[in-house]
Every structure is written in structure tokens, then in C-alpha cells.
């Protein structure tokens, strides 16, 4: 059930109303209720795959529990951890990557193995990663023993289930049992509906309006048509903005839904196009994923502890696998590889210019130039991310440098130019929804070492008649546009 659908609007209203009743009258039942509705939320998509979620939860809970028990008795846990990882990676490998690997092996080695066409269970990438973090922490002795109800709810809690943020058990589970005063409840509800409405509006009024322009150009490239420079640039830029607003919208809606229930999800999105470096970009874009990759993959590989050469290798491995996590297509891996390369260059640049004092005259231009270069690099990488295959990515890249054809799928009208100016103004200069609402704690704090959120005064949200009217009208406009929608981009991961 996508957040941007009428059924979800009905669902969230009913869930919040029943939850409020239970919170007031039967607080012991609220976790069971949330678990039930979370399974219902997932089953709405495909009921039979709920067995996969439940099965995966039971296995991981049992393995994690046994690891915790053994750790407490100072007995070895490595074999169990490996078994747990094999189970989880096997699951995701089977459902998500088996087809890609077999097809690639067939192509490379001239084999003729039948390509498995398994139905990809929704959210498998998310609930698998979340449970891996639990197992690894259990093996490190960091995980507490929680009840099965709490653990199952941590895995399936509907606001984060389908497309994140990637949650950690120790961030979420303690909140399930917490209680709140009426004032806190009212504040959570106000904040939640505001965030949700802003997210819905970003999705329906902005992201979806941009999609047709980028879709038509990338689809032409997929067909092998050489696209013109104008088409390639407009298609690429519109996609860069589409995915920005799509993901920002999803995050706001997930956080808003959860806020209404009094539970804060991890911070996940912080104006990534304001980043002045690729390192900064990854501290702002899909924060929960990059923190997961850092903590459970990059650090596990040794991080930067074994010298610069290994640091770069570790970065590349982390980003390549992080890219592949996004989907069963080698283009995602290349996208991750590009970002890995960018990060290596970024770190090397830092190391090389650490002691350089830039001329005073150049200093004012440093930050804008860095933001521009970072935007250009990430936008270029989006081409590979969005393209269906390498040949269409190549067609788009050729188009970008003026070696394409003479197509004109998207006209560079004054309206398009105005839209681009407005979009740049929003992503570079406007405060984001977290900054606007940060005084009311809409999310958990950013992970250690990540870009801090600064609460703003200008355009800061606070309960008032004016803000209620404006947000209400924005909400109506967003609902009216619901009939033109497609799912969130991150739902496919």
C-alpha cells in the first residue's frame, strides 16, 4: 500500500484513531495492534509473502537470541552469526539477485542455465538489512534480549517497512513501550499530519509532475534513439529533481506517519543537493542507509584503520555493494562504483589540500563551486542509476556532451526554464522539512559524525491558525493530484 494512495489515507486515519483509543484505555494492547496492522499493511500488497516476513523474523529472532545467550556465557558465537548472515543474504540473493547472476553467468560463460523469475518480495532489502544489524550487534554483545512481539514489530513496523528509513532495533524497540502525555500526543499528531501533508504534496505536486519529462527521455534512450543535448540535459536534471523530491516526500510521510503514533524514526534526508562534497552528500542522502553501510560493512572491512590504500579499497567495496543493494541490475553497481570513486577522490583531495591556504580572493567562491561540482557529479551518476542498461546510459551520456541525435521529446520552453530555476532555488536555498520542524523533534538525531540539523526561524513550523490553513489547503491540493500517481522510486528496492 503506497503512502500516496487513498487506501493508505483511510488506513492511517483508522490506525491512528484505534491506536489513540488503545493508548488511553488498553495500553498493553497497542504493540500487538501495531504488529497486526503492520502485517495487514504488507499483506495488502501480497498476502502470501507475509509468510516470508514472519519466517525471516522467527529465524532471526531465534538465532539472535541464541547468539546473545552464548555471548553471555562467553561461548563462541561466530558460527551462529555466519549461519544467520548466510540465511539473510541467501534469502535476498535468491529472491533479488538469482536472476541477475544466472543471466550474467549465461552471458559470460556461454551457459544455458534457465533464468529464475522469482517474484521480488516487497521491502526484502530493508527488513533483511535491519535484521543483519541485530545479529551483528548480538554477536558483539551490544544487543539486549527483547520480547518476540517487540522484535517482530521492529522488523515489520509499517511506517518504515516498505522503503525505510533503515532502523536499528535499539532505536525503535524502547519507544514501543513508552507512554506520552496528552500534550505530547497532541503535539505528535500535529507534527505528524504536517510532515505527512508536506510529504504528500512533494510527491504529488512536484515529483510526479517531473516524472513524465525524465521518463520520456530515458525511455527513448532505452529504445536506442540517440537523444539530443537538450533532451538529455532536461531528462537528467528533471530526474535528479524527481528522485530528490520523491525520496524526500517518502521520508516525510514515513516520519509523519510514525510521529502520529508517538514513535520517532531515524533521520534520513537533509537537503543533499546543498552538500559541498560527496562525503557531505552521503551524510545527507539516505542517511540511514549510509550509516548502516558505514557501521556494518565499511568498518567491518577495516574502514580507514589499515592505511589509505586499504581505505580506498574498502570504500569502493562498500559503495559497489551499496549500489547493488538498490536493485538487481549492474547499472546500480556502477552507480555505487561511481560514488565510491567520487568518495576516493574526495578523500584524496582532502588529504592533498589539508595544509593549502587558498588565496583570500578565491575563498568566497569555494563553497558555491564545491556545491556545484558535487551536484554535477551526483547528477551524472543518476544517469547510470536511472538508465535501464549500459547502452541507454551511454546514449544519455553522449547526449549530455552533444554527441546525440536531434530528438525533441522535451521542449525547453520558458515554463521549463522557470521550473528549473524554482527547483534549484528550493533545493539550494529553501529550508527542508526537518529544519522547519526540528524544534519539535520529528526524527531521531542524525548518527554520530553526520551533518547536524539546524532549526531555522524563517519558515519554521509552529502550530498557528495560519499554518493549519496553509497546510490544510496544501493537503487538499495534494489529494486532488493523487489520481496521477506512480509508486515511490525507493519502493522497488
Amino acid at each position, binding site marked *: 500500500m503506497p503512502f500516496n*494512495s*487513498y*487506501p493508505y489515507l*483511510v488506513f492511517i486515519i483508522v490506525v491512528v484513531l484505534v491506536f489513540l483509543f488503545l493508548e488511553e484505555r488498553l495500553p498493553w494492547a497497542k504493540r500487538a495492534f501495531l504488529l497486526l496492522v503492520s502485517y495487514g499493511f504488507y499483506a495488502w500488497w501480497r498476502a502470501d509473502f507475509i509468510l516470508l516476513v514472519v519466517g525471516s523474523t522467527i529465524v532471526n529472532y531465534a538465532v539472535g537470541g541464541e547468539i546473545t545467550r552464548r555471548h553471555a556465557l562467553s561461548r563462541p558465537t561466530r558460527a551462529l552469526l555466519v549461519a544467520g548472515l548466510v540465511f539473510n543474504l541467501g534469502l535476498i540473493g535468491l529472491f533479488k539477485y538469482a536472476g541477475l547472476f544466472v543471466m550474467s553467468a549465461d552471458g559470460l560463460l556461454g551457459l544455458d542455465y534457465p533464468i529464475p523469475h522469482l517474484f521480488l518480495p516487497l521491502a526484502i532489502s530493508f527488513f533483511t538489512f535491519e535484521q543483519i544489524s541485530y545479529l551483528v550487534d548480538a554477536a558483539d554483545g551490544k544487543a539486549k534480549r527483547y520480547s518476540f512481539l517487540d522484535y517482530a514489530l521492529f522488523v515489520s513496523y509499517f511506517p518504515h517497512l516498505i522503503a525505510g528509513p533503515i532502523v536499528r532495533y535499539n532505536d525503535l524497540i524502547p519507544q514501543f513501550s513508552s507512554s506520552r502525555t496528552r*500534550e505530547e500526543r*497532541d*503535539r505528535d*499528531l*500535529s*507534527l505528524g*499530519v*504536517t510532515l505527512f501533508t508536506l510529504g504528500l504534496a512533494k510527491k504529488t505536486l512536484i515529483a510526479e509532475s517531473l*516524472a513524465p519529462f525524465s*521518463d*520520456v*527521455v530515458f*525511455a*527513448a534512450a*532505452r*529504445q536506442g*534513439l540517440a537523444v539530443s543535448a537538450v533532451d538529455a540535459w532536461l531528462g537528467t536534471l528533471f530526474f535528479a529533481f524527481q528522485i530528490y523530491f520523491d525520496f524526500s516526500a517518502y521520508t516525510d510521510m514515513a516520519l509523519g506517519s510514525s510521529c502520529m503514533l508517538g514513535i520517532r524514526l531515524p533521520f534520513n534526508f537533509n537537503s543533499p543537493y546543498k552538500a559541498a562534497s560527496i562525503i557531505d552528500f552521503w551524510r545527507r542522502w539516505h542517511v540511514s542507509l549510509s550509516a548502516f553501510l558505514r557501521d556494518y560493512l565499511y568498518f567491518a572491512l577495516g574502514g580507514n584503520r589499515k592505511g589509505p590504500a586499504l581505505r580506498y579499497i574498502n570504500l569502493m567495496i562498500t559503495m559497489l555493494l551499496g549500489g547493488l543493494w538498490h536493485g538487481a541490475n549492474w547499472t546500480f553497481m556502477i552507480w555505487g562504483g561511481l560514488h565510491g570513486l567520487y568518495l576516493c577522490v574526495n578523500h584524496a583531495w582532502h588529504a592533498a589540500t589539508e595544509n593549502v591556504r587558498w588565496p583570500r580572493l578565491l575563498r568566497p567562491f569555494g563553497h558555491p563551486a564545491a556545491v556545484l561540482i558535487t551536484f554535477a557529479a551526483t547528477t551524472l551518476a543518476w544517469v547510470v542509476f536511472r538508465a535501464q542498461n549500459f547502452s541507454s546510459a551511454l546514449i544519455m551520456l553522449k547526449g549530455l556532451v552533444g554527441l546525440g541525435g536531434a530528438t525533441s*521529446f522535451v521542449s525547453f520552453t520558458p515554463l521549463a526554464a522557470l521550473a528549473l530555476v524554482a527547483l534549484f532555488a528550493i533545493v539550494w536555498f529553501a529550508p527542508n522539512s526537518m529544519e522547519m520542524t526540528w524544534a519539535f523533534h520529528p526524527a531521531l538525531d542524525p548518527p554520530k559524525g553526520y551533518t547536524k540539523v539546524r532549526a531555522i526561524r524563517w519558515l519554521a513550523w509552529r*502550530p*498557528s*491558525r495560519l*499554518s*493549519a*490553513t496553509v*497546510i*490544510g*489547503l496544501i*493537503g*487538499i491540493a495534494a*489529494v*486532488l*493530484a*493523487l*489520481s*496521477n*500517481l*506512480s*509508486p515511490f522510486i525507493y519502493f522497488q528496492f
Partner: protein
Amino acid sequence: MSAKHYLAWFLSVVATALVALVAFNAYCEYVIFSDPNGASVETVSGFERVLKPAWLDSIAPQMVFVGSSRIREGFDPVLIDAAFHVKSFDYGVSSITPYEARRFLEDTLAHPSVRTVVMALDAFAGGNDAQKIGPGFDELRLAVTADGRPTPRRALWLFTTRYLSGGAAGMHALALYDLMQLGPGQTATDRPDLFEAYSRMTAASMRLDLAFRGERVMRLSRSAHEEFKAALADLCPRADVRAYLFFPPDNGAVIERYLANDRAGLLAFKQTVLEDVVRHNAVCPNQIALFDFMTRNAITEAPMPNGVSETYLDLVHFRPPVGVVLLKRMLGEAGPGTELVAPASLH
């Protein structure tokens, strides 16, 4: 302001707006369905993609015209119903893709009242994946699953589509405006300024349109052919439905362009469709009549007295009176065009 009051104010604003919206849409729907000229708004361009699936459900027609804007402009149910004594529905939408054409046909066949389907084949000529509809199409336009089965949410979908969608508000506003502008005794025919389907092509607009459409081709891509075959498969078991497919009568000037740009493509399109239909009729309980109006005939070569066409509003969109002529021909009367029954009948 307290958070509680904020919430109350927010909900009041949303509730008031929603009630106003539902009331407006319900009123418009009442006016459209009760006005004798109401069905003419099915020829109006606007938000038809959103609303027509819901209208189809409400109207429960016996005869449905499926296709692109050629269908939308060319078949006015007010004229059709009067001439043929049926309840008809115009399911034409702008720039239809082959995927949509197949899905809209499936949607039509899912309605038990439907006995006749008329479909223009240019819907399958836009086989450019660049225009393919995104993955939300099935769910959001028709409330069906990826394999075409209605979802359990259809009732909710019907309600939200008719009363809470921007498409409904836009289409209803357009339709209401057009109907309110009609004077006493007037029909859509009298107001081509409102009902564009009834406007007339002039020599000047023809020249402009020819420049605009000069590069067009009419061919069946592989993916479009797959959609066409899927559409035939949907029709196959339906002995209770009579289907009429036709190559629309685009103006002779533009047919010349198709031939100049890709003669082989056009001929292969017709040949392929004909072979598929002959095969279909040989094995399926459902029977299809196939007509080719995309030839030199009295419609496509119609003269333009004083530079004004009574046949077309532009080079590819024929006017509703021509739609009546086409339907008469397909239902058995003599007239322009050719019925394609065997490979030999294609020239």
C-alpha cells in the same frame, strides 16, 4: 495556539474543502448525466483518462468506442444513440498507448452491459515505449492488478475517482461550463467553439497541421503488436460481444505522408492486423469485423468547399457526423472504406 487547536483547525479546513469538492463533483455528474447533451462532453479533451473509466461504470453502455483522440473526437454518443438506438460510450483518450488501448479494452469487456466494441487501430501505432505508462497505471486508472483482475478496492477507487480526484474536478468543471454555455435548443453541433470535435478544418489550418504531422509514420512496433495480440486474446472467448476494428480515415494528405515516410511500415501494419484477425475469427467464439478506412475514399478525399472541411477538424481527427457514417458502414450499410476479410482484400 495549542497543538490540539492546530489539529482541529487543520481538520476543519481539510473537511470543509473535501465536502465542497464532493458536492461540486456530485452536482456536475448529476447535470452531465441528466442533460440530453450531456454525453457530448465525452468528446471533450481534458482529464478524460482519469474520469472515463468511472463514467463507463456509471453509464453501463451497450456499445463502446475505444481508442485515441480520433475516437474521442469522432464518436459523439448523442448522435450515435439517436441514429442506432443504443446506449453508447466514447472511451477515447488523447495519445493513447498500445498498453492503455489493451487495458481500456479489457475494462470495457469487464462490463456485462457491453455488446459491441468499436476500436480504432491507430491506438496500436504509437508503439513508442517512451510513452509507456508507469507502473501505477493499472492500480490508479482501473483498480486492476497487473494481470488485469479487479482489486478488492474498486468501490473505494470509484468513489475517489469520481469525487476526490483532481481529474474529476477538472473534467467536471470543463463539462459543466460547456453545457451551461449551450443555449435553448442548441446541441454540441451548434457550438464548435466549446465542443472542438465539431469544429472544421480550414485550408490554412490544414497546411499548418501538415507541417506539424509531416514526419509521422503509421507502423506497428513489436511491443505494440504484443499488446494487440493480448487484446485479441481478451476478446477471443467473448461470443456475446461483437467487435469492430478499423484503420481510421486519416485525411488523404496525411496518408500520403505515411506512405512517403514509411510505406512498408503502413502496409505491414495492415497485413499483420489482417492476418491476426483472420486467425482470430477462425479459432475464437468472438468474431471481429475489420475495416480499412485509411485508403483513398470518399471520406479521406473529401473536397473542402471554400477551404473548409465538413469531414475533419484537422488532418487526422474526423468529425462526429463522419463517425456515424463509419459506424453505418461497419454495421453493414454501403459506404466508403473496405472490409478486410482475407489477405487478398488488402491492397
